[in-house]
């Protein structure tokens, strides 16, 4: 590997870096993964970690279903049951769907918009390590006196020190805070990347729909996470410092927690579903062999969902009794938000209508998404009707609803994305037959598990009970549901076998295996470290497809080029492609955060102080090391060294004037970068 041995130029005088912390140069092996700042590797790390947490959350779900399979279940005690359902919810929301979506954001957004990396590669690595360490911190509670047990919503004052002594809730509070820091940083990073790093000609309304939905979801994250951060912050003060924010005896208002939590919690719902909607909107046109029906409408309905998502949170609180005005207003807004969602569903149908459909595995998952999500959406609209909602609140009907949108929606969409982009990411094609087995087994299991919940809920079975009496009439449906849960587990096992089999004996994927439409497929599979050998110049929405097809005089579609011939060649050492250099410091900085949190949980402030020291060391060293090491003179005789930042300010000054006119639409007149602008040598080539 070509690499620089030059010590960090600017770091010298400020802090002395120990020899073993010298700038890493090797991108192989464990150190390579620990220090990577490549958005694609970080995306893979997000995806693999989220999948492992998916298995953990799934095992928790199976435990819940085993306990409830029969009346008077004895598998779990009430105390353990509370911990298991709390961690199931917390895991699936914060450690599975959010980071799995982040995996796709990270991997795909820079590729789809024609960029070489995200705007802040090291901040990106920091976000991932915060996610991993935050997740491990949460689960370390299992060994340290018990997992959180207050539900994923953590309603105060139930979670206050009076009613929840012990450290369970402390782990939840600090765990979610840690995860929130990582997610906020990642959201800001991806927003800047999407707005600012588009290839020439990649106007906002030419951006692939997944990048659009990612942008909306990241704006929601940016604004929603601070609200739960404050809620957790106040709860932490109540628990650790004796304040009374959620103490009704001292004038505290328990509804404050609910307001803050759901102001975060409802946008969060769209944070969980919008990425999957984006994935499905990418898959459908490719396998229907038609452009996405109503692309601008799809974009604007996504934005509309993003805005309206802020005005519906009280429908989680209709049973609280906030008075007729608030209740009526939020009832109406909840019905209204069904409109842009419905627009999307009809546009997916419009995309498939009249297309020549190819029922490959990704397409099956996409269609499954539309159907299951529609069922979940319809049961969701029933919550807008306040009298009905009062009956449904805290019953299994609610559980049915959100599993249809989160599993039937998000999880199916994400699996579809895994099948669709697997060749791009790993250069191998997952077996289509096994994929279809996976889909049908999982779809069957899913409906067996969660379909009966609708009826159980309407029959009055409450949520969060750890057992029930045998004469309630719930026995058969609960048993069916448990059987369904194990069928889902079988589906996941088929998927894991498929992955194992693919890597053991699978064939390498061809370039452009699906006859795809978007820019990312113009790079070879798997994507090389530098993404684009030449930064593309974009002239159409679905630019790649327009390079392959055109219309003749009669309007018939004519193929003018084979996808595989358009795919960019891989770089050779002569191309001198420069990439930002790997770094230890994001990992070091992130490592400080859980140490601070442990110190706070146990009120051992010396430990927290050590954590602060680690965090500050990491941040400071990160700040003073250049993002990109200058090229090694021996290696790069004919390359100009990375420019000092003088040009940045000049470009900025010129840009302020330019920004007014271009409005971001024209790509700011950015020249197509020749391979090897400004980045350090990190020769990637073919390995």
């Amino acid at each position, binding site marked *: 590997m070509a690499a620089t041995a030059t010590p960090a130029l600017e770091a010298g005088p400020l802090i002395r870096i120990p020899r073993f912390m010298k700038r890493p140069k090797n991108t192989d092996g464990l150190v390579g993964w620990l220090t990577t700042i490549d958005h694609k590797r970080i995306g893979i790390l997000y995806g693999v970690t989220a999948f492992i947490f998916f298995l953990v959350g799934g095992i928790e779900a199976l435990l819940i279903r085993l306990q409830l399979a029969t009346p008077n279940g004895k598998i779990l005690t009430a105390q353990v049951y509370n911990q298991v359902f709390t961690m199931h919810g917390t895991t699936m929301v914060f450690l599975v769907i959010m980071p799995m979506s982040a995996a796709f954001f990270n991997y795909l957004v820079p590729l789809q918009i024609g960029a070489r990396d995200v705007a*802040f590669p090291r901040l990106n690595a920091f976000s991932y390590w915060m996610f991993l360490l935050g997740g491990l911190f949460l689960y370390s509670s299992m060994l340290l006196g018990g997992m959180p047990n207050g539900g994923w919503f953590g309603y105060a004052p139930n979670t206050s020190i009076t009613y929840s002594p012990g450290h369970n809730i402390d782990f939840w509070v600090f765990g979610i805070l840690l995860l929130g820091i990582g997610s906020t940083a990642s959201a800001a990073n991806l927003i800047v990347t999407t707005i600012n790093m588009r290839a020439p000609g990649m106007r906002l309304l030419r951006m692939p729909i997944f990048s659009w939905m990612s942008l909306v979801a990241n704006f929601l994250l940016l604004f929603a996470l601070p609200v739960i951060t404050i809620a957790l912050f106040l709860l932490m*003060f109540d628990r650790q410092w004796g304040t*009374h924010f959620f103490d009704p005896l001292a004038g505290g208002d328990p509804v404050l927690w609910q307001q803050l939590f759901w102001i975060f919690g409802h946008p969060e719902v769209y944070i969980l579903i919008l990425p999957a909607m984006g994935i499905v909107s990418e898959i459908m046109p490719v396998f229907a062999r038609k452009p996405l029906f109503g692309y601008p409408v799809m974009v604007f309905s996504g934005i509309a969902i993003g805005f309206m998502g802020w005005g519906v949170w009280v429908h989680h609180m209709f049973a609280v009794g906030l008075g007729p005005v608030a209740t009526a207003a939020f009832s109406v807004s909840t019905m209204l938000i069904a409109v842009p969602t419905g627009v999307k569903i009809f546009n997916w149908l419009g995309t498939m209508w009249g297309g020549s459909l190819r029922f490959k595995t990704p397409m099956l998952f996409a269609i499954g998404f539309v159907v299951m999500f529609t069922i979940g959406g319809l049961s969701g609209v029933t919550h807008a009707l306040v009298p009905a909602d009062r009956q449904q609140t805290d019953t299994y009907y609610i559980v049915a609803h959100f599993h249809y949108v989160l599993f039937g929606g998000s999880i199916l969409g994400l699996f579809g994305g895994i099948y669709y982009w697997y060749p791009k990411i790993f250069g191998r094609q997952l077996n289509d037959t096994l994929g279809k087995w996976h889909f049908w087994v999982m779809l069957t299991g899913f409906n067996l598990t969660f379909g009966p919940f609708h009826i159980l809920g309407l029959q009055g079975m409450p949520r969060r009970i750890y057992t029930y009496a045998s004469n309630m009439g719930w026995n058969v449906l609960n048993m069916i549901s448990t059987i369904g849960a194990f069928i889902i587990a079988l589906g996941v096992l088929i998927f894991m076998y498929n992955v194992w089999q693919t890597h053991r004996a699978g064939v390498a994927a061809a370039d452009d295996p699906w006859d795809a439409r978007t820019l990312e497929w113009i790079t070879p599979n798997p994507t090389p470290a530098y993404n684009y050998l030449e930064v593309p110049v974009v002239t159409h929405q679905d630019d790649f497809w327009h390079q392959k097809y055109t219309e003749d005089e009669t309007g018939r579609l004519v193929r003018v080029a084979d996808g595989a011939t358009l795919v960019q060649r891989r770089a050779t050492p002569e191309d001198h492609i420069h990439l930002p250099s790997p770094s230890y410091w994001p990992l070091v900085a992130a490592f400080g955060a859980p140490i601070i949190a442990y110190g706070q949980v146990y009120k051992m402030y010396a430990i927290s102080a050590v954590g602060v020291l680690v965090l500050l060391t990491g941040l400071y060293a990160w700040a003073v090391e250049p993002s990109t090491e200058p090229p090694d003179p021996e290696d790069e005789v004919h390359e100009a060294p990375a420019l000092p930042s003088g040009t*940045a300010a000049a470009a900025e000054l010129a840009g302020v004037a330019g920004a007014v006119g271009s409005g971001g639409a024209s790509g700011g007149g950015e020249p197509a970068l020749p391979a090897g602008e400004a980045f350090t040598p990190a020769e990637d080539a073919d390995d």
Partner: protein
Amino acid sequence: MADTLPAAHAHADAHHATSTGISNEKMAMWAFLASDCLLFGALISTYILYRHKAVAGPTPHSLYDIPFTSVSSFVLLMSSLSMALAVAAIQRGDERRLRVWLSTTALLGSVFIGGQIYEFTSFIRRGMTIKTNVTSGAFFVLTGFHGVHVTLGILMLLSLVSLSIRGKIPQAKAEVVEIAGLYWHFVDIVWIIIFTVIYLIP
């Protein structure tokens, strides 16, 4: 802070034009501040909710000294002026005045923090701690959170001064100072709202 320090050296990435013409670092600072608005928004809402909900003990209304806090607020607002002068200085390429005005800004910020520490100790001595009632809790958490922001800002300013002494902030890097200024002005504007809500609305 975490966002801005790395920004100071991330220019190697950004020396080609961006799609909007605004540098990545500056846009990231705007995004961070937008997010920060919601943090303060939630805390200010909490304070407004709990303003008159105390069931025991003194509240900020019965203890505060409006003339004193008005003076320290004025000091903080003046620091925005010196911050703007610092940005103007480095845009002209005047590194010496940059350091003078950055130091002035940091000093004014420290005076404000000193005033806040004095106010907190005086409240605590007169029997109002964070535990006393919901109003006092909301008061200390909101103003303390703002104070932490100012303190981080002071550290950022001092880091810039030390960088400038070693010649690392030439005119071409004026944007680093400008980005720090965005943060500083934001913290000042938030204080105007907090001051109004806590001290001026009866």
